[in-house]
């Protein structure tokens, strides 16, 4: 009778050990899976944002809109006369930018002293958008005048 009770106790002990072991195992697997999923999502988002930053840098140094003073490129400045010409380009002519700026919308807005805006490229889309504003000086070569504005870049990821 006593041996049977001892065996039952030992069996209960083994079962408890197994339960705790499987609980730890399941906890570990769930934790690792969620951690891996998080990491994968983070990597994917970072990769997309990296592509967006590459597009932004291409826009910042785009000769089609950048200021040139006596042949030298002026960083952080866009030329108003180039913006106005770019704005007039028919959409068909802008197709060459499709590979350079995929799923991208580029606008330039003058905010000081008065407000004005130019649509440079792209059409609004649905989905997650990466918004990247860059303050710039806008050069008016006719009046030799600089105003303050923003290049607004929206990349749809």
């Amino acid at each position, binding site marked *: 009778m006593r041996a049977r009770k001892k065996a039952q106790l030992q069996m209960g002990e083994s079962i408890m050990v197994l339960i*705790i072991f499987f609980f730890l195992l399941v906890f570990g697997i769930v934790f690792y899976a969620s951690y891996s999923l998080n990491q994968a999502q983070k990597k994917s988002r*970072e990769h997309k*944002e*990296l592509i967006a930053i590459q597009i932004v840098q291409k826009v910042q140094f785009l000769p089609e809109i950048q200021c040139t003073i006596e042949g030298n490129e002026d960083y952080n400045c866009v030329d108003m006369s180039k913006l106005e010409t770019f704005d007039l380009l028919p959409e068909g002519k802008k197709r060459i930018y499709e590979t350079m700026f995929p799923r991208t919308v580029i606008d330039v807005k003058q*905010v*000081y002293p008065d*407000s004005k805006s130019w649509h440079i490229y792209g059409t609004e889309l649905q989905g997650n958008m990466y918004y990247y504003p860059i303050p710039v000086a806008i050069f008016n070569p006719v009046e030799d005048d600089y105003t303050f504005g923003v290049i607004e870049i929206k990349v749809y990821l």
Partner: protein
Amino acid sequence: MKRKSQIEIMGLLIIVMMVSLLLIFALRSWLSPAENPSERQRMRDIAASFVGAMLNTNSGCMDDTLFSKVLIDCARKPGTGTNGFVCTNGKHSCDFAHDALADMFNKTIDVWKYPYDFKVVAPNNQKINKLSFSSANVGDTKSNVIVFIQPLPLDTSGFRTMQIFLCVGGKCPI
């Protein structure tokens, strides 16, 4: 009997160690702040480009007066209210710069909802109160702040300089 209990204690210790390791690993990954390098890059770009573009802008104070000249004039005699420039609208350089900067911030970084702190420091560490701006959401955080500093010479010798601080993401550490 004694040996069996020793083995059991060792087993228990191993389990406790494994669970502790797992918990430390889990806590570390949950508690560590999520760094977003692209967000920091964006804040850095905004700070540097804002100051660079603002200084190159024609102020409108007088014909052909860049904003940098208005700020330099304000920093030469801050606080006196009788600076060299009197703009075409009758305002002194510091007042003119205050209004123009407020307009620029309202239409840009305020709209983008980034916390920011803007300060102009004249020689002898004299902060120009009229040219201090910060967003409502700036808080008190001084860590993880992008600090952009632009020095400007106040005279041709270059010994006297003013400094423009634009901090994005929190308060300037000055």
